[in-house]
């Protein structure tokens, strides 16, 4: 639920990175944080376990400038990807305006991607939101592993598994090297802002 402050002329919108555990959601935010450090005033908040796994969420507020005379502040969140954290994951989705689904390109993660996307659909439905209507971008992460000889799913297979019904924009990416991390973010911000503008008009 985007909040528009008429007095300060500020809009706050919430974008959540979703996907299977160890898929690279936090790494996406870490890359964005390092890349735009000069524009991000606060520290990135990460609530994680001792073993460096996301426990609740990462949080990164990001000023993207003026749209229609309003200062737009995008709040980027991740969810915990591990299956056992479903109750916590659902809480983070509250009031979401846009989503990035970070899939893991490794062949052995194929099933986990599909289950996580299904879980997203169910959790959105618990807030009466449809996965077909929420602004959504898919990211096929870890493409850099191809060079290491790790078996990866062809992009066509990922598209067929995850995007054959959704038909949303998708990116092949590597959160570790930063490849297509910023384009993914720009795309979801632009989709989210377009839907915001449609409602604001």
């Amino acid at each position: 639920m985007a909040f528009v402050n008429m007095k300060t002329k500020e809009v706050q919108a919430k974008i959540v990175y979703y996907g299977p555990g160890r898929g690279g959601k936090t790494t996406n935010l870490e890359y964005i944080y390092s890349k735009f450090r000069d524009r991000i005033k606060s520290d990135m908040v990460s609530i994680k376990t001792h073993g460096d796994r996301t426990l609740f969420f990462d949080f990164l507020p990001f000023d993207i400038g003026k749209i229609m005379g309003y200062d737009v502040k995008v709040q980027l969140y991740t969810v915990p990807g591990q299956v056992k954290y479903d109750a916590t994951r659902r809480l983070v989705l509250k009031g979401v305006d846009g989503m990035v689904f970070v899939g893991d390109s490794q062949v052995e993660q194929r099933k986990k991607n599909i289950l996580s996307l299904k879980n997203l659909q169910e959790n959105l439905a618990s807030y009466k939101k449809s996965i077909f209507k929420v602004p959504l971008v898919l990211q096929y992460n870890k493409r850099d592993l191809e060079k290491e000889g790790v078996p990866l799913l062809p992009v066509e297979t990922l598209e067929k598994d995850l995007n054959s019904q959704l038909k949303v924009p998708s990116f092949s990416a590597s959160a570790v090297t930063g490849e297509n991390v910023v384009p993914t973010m720009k795309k979801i911000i632009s989709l989210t802002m377009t839907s915001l503008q449609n409602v604001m008009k």
Partner: protein
Amino acid sequence: MGSNYDDNVTFTDYTLGQEQLERIEHVLSEDLVRSGVHSVLLIDMAGNIIAKCDNGNCDHDLYSLAALASANFAAVDTMAKIVGEEEFSLLFHKGQSESIHFSKVNNEFLLITIFGKEVSLGLLRLKVTEAVEKINSVW
């Protein structure tokens, strides 16, 4: 998909005009900051900051605090439901020199108050209750 789904982007269920926001900020300033509170935030359940006010000497990261506070409230609320409770009593975290008090304004909003040792918990609760009533009367 059925028609019970919301549209792609939903705005908050409430709308607040400039005049209403000014009245709310006035309440935060007069009732709470003047009583010695360091900083006060009105946030919604998704973690957005609706209104804020402080004594001028606070440099806490309020956007992060709002995100954490709404998450804290939601987690506690879910735990209450798991053990069969409607909701738990109000949240309050006491530190050595700074404490945080949470108060549910209505289904949409939380009032987060950060205060030090100069203010007793008793006085704070009284002032928060008054402020919550006044904020609710803004609608």
